[in-house]
């Protein structure tokens, strides 16, 4: 068994030009943690998710390499966080999408795919080898459901 058999072939996707506000509302409404971002050719370009949103509302100095490790002296309200969010809400999601999640090829063996999922701790994209075309997504839920279903129907 390999990644292509474990993936959802029709995942919800975002475009790099979608605004942060629009994408945020969508992922909040549907309780997504991460969504793949694809260009007009359905080429995978990154992931956008709740971490990106958090990053926008926390002071920038915290996320700089060798930046502030201790922020316990800053006391802010939801209004402060919203104010910071409103400064970037009209920006495209391309400014903060994550490119760190490594996609897997469709013929990646199931165990290796599971290892990748475990290490990434987020849904992983399946991308056509040699191109960047997004073929599907593998999430904990799909994998979990398929593992449980493999045991056959439960006895009453």
């Amino acid at each position, binding site marked *: 068994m390999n990644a292509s058999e474990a993936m959802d072939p029709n995942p919800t996707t975002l475009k790099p030009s979608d605004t942060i506000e629009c994408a945020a509302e969508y992922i909040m409404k549907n309780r997504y943690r991460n969504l793949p971002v694809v260009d007009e050719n359905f080429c995978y370009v990154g992931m956008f998710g709740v971490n990106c949103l958090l990053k926008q509302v926390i*002071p*920038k*100095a*915290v996320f*700089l390499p*060798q930046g502030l490790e201790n922020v316990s*002296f*800053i006391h802010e309200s939801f209004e402060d966080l919203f104010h910071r969010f409103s400064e970037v809400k009209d920006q495209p999601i391309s400014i903060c999408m994550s490119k760190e999640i490594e996609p897997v090829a469709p013929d990646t063996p199931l165990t290796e795919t599971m290892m990748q999922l475990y290490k990434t701790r987020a849904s992983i994209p399946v991308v056509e080898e040699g191109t960047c075309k997004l073929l599907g997504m593998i999430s904990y839920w799909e994998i979990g459901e398929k593992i449980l279903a493999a045991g056959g129907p439960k006895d009453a």
Partner: protein
Amino acid sequence: MHSAHQADVIFGLSPVLFAGSLFVLTYLLIITERLNRAIIAMTAAALMIIGGVLTQEAAVQGVDFNTIGLLTGMMIIVGITRDSGVFQYLAIRSAKVVKADPWGILVMLMLVTALLSALLDNVTTVLLIAPITLLITDTLKISAYPYLFAEIFASNIGGTATLIGDPPNIMIGSATGLGYNDFLFNLAPIAIVILIITIIPIYFIWGRHLKADAELIEKVMQYREIDAIKDWVLLKKSLFVMTMVMIGFIVGHDYGYQPATIAMFGAAVLLTLNCLPHDQEKQTELVAKTLGDVEWITIFFFIGLFILVYGVESTGILESLAHQVIELTDGDKTVTAISILFVSAVASAIVDNIPFVATMIPLIKNMAASFGGAEELLPIWWSLALGACLGGNGSLVGASANLIVAGFAERSGQPIRFLPFMLMAFPMMLVSVMISAVYVYFRYF
């Protein structure tokens, strides 16, 4: 000279040609920054031995373990102290003391940076201050550029003031036997004057235009600096050890204790105090973390350079250069001191001041006989220290701390470009060197 260590023929070349060529090549490679400087220095050191200029025993003799020990010891002490949050506390407190007024914050952060740079190394200081600066300027919605520019200057000026403030001073102190108090009494007064004078152009260029909304100022005032202290017990231990180490630097010289002994002993005591309450496993973890925080790149860079320069010195090149410098200045000590001050400043603005000072130390030592003994060299040592430390302000590559600040600026989206920085900084650096020249002239001649 150390001719006893030399072989007669090296790869068919004379020792002078081999060591001289290797030295020039090493400098060029360091300037290009194509390869990590520690790798370059270590390779050059190894080639000095393989090439037959030095034996391994001679190479070890060339390493100034007082400099290495002092640097390592202070890095350990600062690395542990940093975890207490005291430096963040100081930066936030200083901003609140001036009611978060943008110009007041700039002056206060300059003063804190200068003070910390005098007590810690400059790189550590800017690593602690720059993120807080970016947080404050981001909150106030003002440009971070003037603040970061001022902090670069403050770190290099502050570092000039003490024996432990900047690596060139550590090297000079170690090579000459000049102690903490000597540096404090001879360099701190002029460093304070230069710092105050440096604030003036910064005010006229940027300071008078710095404004922020009252609402944003209030946000900075809401920072609770006391919450920045993460570990009160560690803070007390760290401050106790740092105070003892400073006292050790001040009085230890009279009892024949080298700064490296004091710094390493302080580091060992602080490590013990930090580890003692924990079990074996946690102790190992804490020691590994602390030693991992030591800037080994800098330490190995120093070791390699010491061997390289010792090799060059052993061939007599530096002695010959020293005689040429004296000939150029007609044996006039005043002209020699002032020339070294300016040459050091300009050179340090262009190349790393560590290899420059490592080369200048044996060169100046070779002038002792011409000027009537080692005691007569004091004004020249102070000129070298002032030139090498202040010269770091001349360009973005003049000091490691400058590059660290530039890195923060770049990542925060407010880059400090090489040329615009130099156009502003180089003249300001020259002014500071001119002030130093006046000081050296009137105080020592």
